[in-house]
């Protein structure tokens, strides 16, 4: 069962920290060239999922499978994992300031990735680095090679990180909140950049974010997570046009719109995510306007049309 031809096939992935399951048996797939948005609020497990896929978690027990190009990322040996990390799979983290080594020039950091994974010599690595910098929009790339991270702005740092992540032409890019720490005008630039890179390089991307607006512009499909489980997954257009799960509906309604509804009270989702991980049955039930007796049993993902699934007994 090695994923049936898809680039990435995650099956029943579970991540547990002691007794708590931060991620509880989630499954999803990703095709080549597709961008999947993994959306949810704090504590839903989206970042944990990404970290689990490339095995960067400390002190966690990971179960299930994640088939990537015939290899199970959950079970594969550490040596092979190291080759894949940075090579076939690239990753972008949230805070650009801490993702780069503060004492090494940025040019050297990118070159290091190239030399490790592609075995390029110093000259070739330098040339490729300049090319990459140009591709990600770093002005005057030759001069920027010898700059330290603290001498660059947030947006510039993030561009360097993207350069590092795509240096070895990965087939899959994991982007964890890549624009959250940036100003909104810079965010637009970076999202534009990611979008074009994914398109031109036929690279697949998993974009992790809490911002549904970001997802709307860049992704082909969306998976919504809540308290460690995926509650809905659909093509982007369909998710926004016709959300099935009450959480997704509530989330979309509670986003302040720029074009309307300024003077009305904003619709809200009652309560807060509190110990939802420990609940048997549907985890969203305590906050759900549609909750009923049947919700005491955890709902599976049910189909609601082409490629559209939601985990809810009461959705229609």
């Amino acid at each position, binding site marked *: 069962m090695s994923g049936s031809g898809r680039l990435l096939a995650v099956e029943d992935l579970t991540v547990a920290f002691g007794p708590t399951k931060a991620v509880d048996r989630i499954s999803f797939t990703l095709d080549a060239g597709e961008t999947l948005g993994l959306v949810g609020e704090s504590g839903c497990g989206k970042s944990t999922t990404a970290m689990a896929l490339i095995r960067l978690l400390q002190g966690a027990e990971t179960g299930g499978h994640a088939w990537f190009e015939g290899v199970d990322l959950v079970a594969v040996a550490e040596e092979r994992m190291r080759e894949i990390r940075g090579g076939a799979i690239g990753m972008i983290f949230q805070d650009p300031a801490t993702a780069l080594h503060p004492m090494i020039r940025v040019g050297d950091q990118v070159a290091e990735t190239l030399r490790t994974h592609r075995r390029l010599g110093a000259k070739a690595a330098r040339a490729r680095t300049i090319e990459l910098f140009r591709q990600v929009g770093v002005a005057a790339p030759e001069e920027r090679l010898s700059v330290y991270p603290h001498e660059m702005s947030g947006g510039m740092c993030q561009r360097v990180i993207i350069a590092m992540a795509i240096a070895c032409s990965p087939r899959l890019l994991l982007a964890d909140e890549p624009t959250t720490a940036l100003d909104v005008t810079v965010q637009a630039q970076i999202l534009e950049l990611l979008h074009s890179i994914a398109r031109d390089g036929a690279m697949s991307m998993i974009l992790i974010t809490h911002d549904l607006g970001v997802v709307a512009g860049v992704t082909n499909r969306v998976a919504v997570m809540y308290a460690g489980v995926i509650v809905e997954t659909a093509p982007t257009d369909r998710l926004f046009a016709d959300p099935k799960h009450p959480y997704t509906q509530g989330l979309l309604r509670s986003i302040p719109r720029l074009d309307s509804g300024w003077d009305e009270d904003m619709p809200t989702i*009652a*309560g807060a995510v*509190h*110990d939802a991980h420990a609940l048997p049955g549907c985890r969203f039930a*305590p*906050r759900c306007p549609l909750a009923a007796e049947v919700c005491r049993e955890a709902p599976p993902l049910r189909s609601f049309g082409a490629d559209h699934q939601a985990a809810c007994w009461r959705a229609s």
Partner: protein
Amino acid sequence: MFDSVVGTLPAVTPPRRHASRLFFRHRLAALGLVVIVALVLSAAFAPWLSPYNPDDLDMANRYAPPLSAGHLLGSDDLGRDVLTRLMYAGQVSLSVGVAAMAVTVIVGFAIGAFAAYLGGWIDVALMRVTDTMLCFPSVFLLLFVAAFVTPSLASISLMIGLTCWMELARVIYGQIRVLRSADFVAAARMVGAPAWRIILRQILPNVMAPILVAATLNTANAILLESYISFLGYGIQPPQASWGNMLTNAQSDFLVDPWLALMPGLAITLAVTSFNFIGDGLRDALDPKMSRR
């Protein structure tokens, strides 16, 4: 009108209970606590517990070794019961230790806190004083001062306290420098709270951990320092007994009766080590990183 808030709050162990659980996991700390309690009780209830009066002479049984008839821990050069004297001396040594610790904690906290919170020239002045005093080894400083001061319980406690506050001042300074820019401090400042009130009500509860640890470790240190200067003759003066000056007398008699030196030495060691273990246990129990369970 208002959104109803989910009223169920998660059950959380209150911070104090959690800390004491962690403390007692540290075996040596728990043991240290038992020992200290025993020492304090024996000192406090000496008049009722001791087999003799501290000044009762028994010239017939001078230099009796421990476990001899009538003297569980032996007797000294004047036939006075060692166990009794240890208990009464314990009153002195332990109270000097605690009193000196109190002085250290109050002075150290005040200096560190005001320097950190007020900043400016006060900061510079106070920290330079601290740094200067740190240059002198505390024992020599103490002896120097002791030579000029008439020794009494109060003056000795004060002297010891005033030579040991610098490290705590530094630790507090570092912690408060960070806390100073916290928003909750800004909120208090904005509403007009004076500096002393902010330091006591807002900041102090957040630095209790280093203070408690420093308090126990400083008590151990103070007991040791008292025994140094009393042993050298500059501290507690006979006939009042302290563990330290019991050692002075015992020094000349060492070849005749080594037990006279070992007994007070043991008492000092027990007290100091126990306080140190308690300090270690407190440090572990109050360390925020370890309490993430």
